[in-house]
């Protein structure tokens, strides 16, 4: 069982009503929004209707919203080595 990962890259503003409705049926509401749908002929037909607007990948499972978000989250690049409280107790102990 695999899934389509569909991302809306271009909006359907000014396109025929059918394209907008297909996007709504797929659950794509705004640009860069991502939805997951099981691979089936009906979903494939829907994608074909809006193939100029979306990018499609095949994935093994549905990712959660947080997982999709975490793909873009960078590393913090720092960590707390010694807090001021620990340092003070160290100094007091000496």
């Amino acid at each position, binding site marked *: 069982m*695999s899934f*389509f990962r569909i991302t809306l890259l*271009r909006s*359907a503003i*000014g*396109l025929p009503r059918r394209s907008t409705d297909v996007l709504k049926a797929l659950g794509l509401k705004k640009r860069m929004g991502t939805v997951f749908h099981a*691979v*089936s*002929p009906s979903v*494939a*037909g829907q*994608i*074909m*209707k809006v*193939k*100029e*607007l*979306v*990018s*499609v*990948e*095949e994935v093994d499972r549905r990712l959660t919203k947080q997982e999709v978000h975490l793909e873009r989250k960078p590393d913090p690049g720092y960590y707390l080595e010694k807090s001021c409280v620990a340092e003070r107790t160290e100094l007091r102990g000496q």
Partner: protein
Amino acid sequence: MFKPTSALFGGLLWKTPWRLSSMQKARQRKRLRAVDRVVDTVSAALQRNGQTSKAVQRWYAEMPREEEMLPKDKYTIFDKKEKTYRKGIHKLPKWTRLSQRVNPPGF
């Protein structure tokens, strides 16, 4: 000194160039390839699940791929009102979000 140009003579003047620039053509090729990639992904996924879709089959039967297309078809479109029966594809409304790949045979 007054230099008579059409912009100064008339009021509102919007000009659309008669052909695409090389960058516009490059972006057009990129868009064509992106659509090809979407269709390939969909068809491969369906094939792996043992399913078929009429829309995908029809696309493959009717539409040429980007690299199979002639430059003429990539950047121009048939128009019966033109003397050469061709005009730039950018004259087509919403041309960046449409798949316009085939033209009448013989033109």
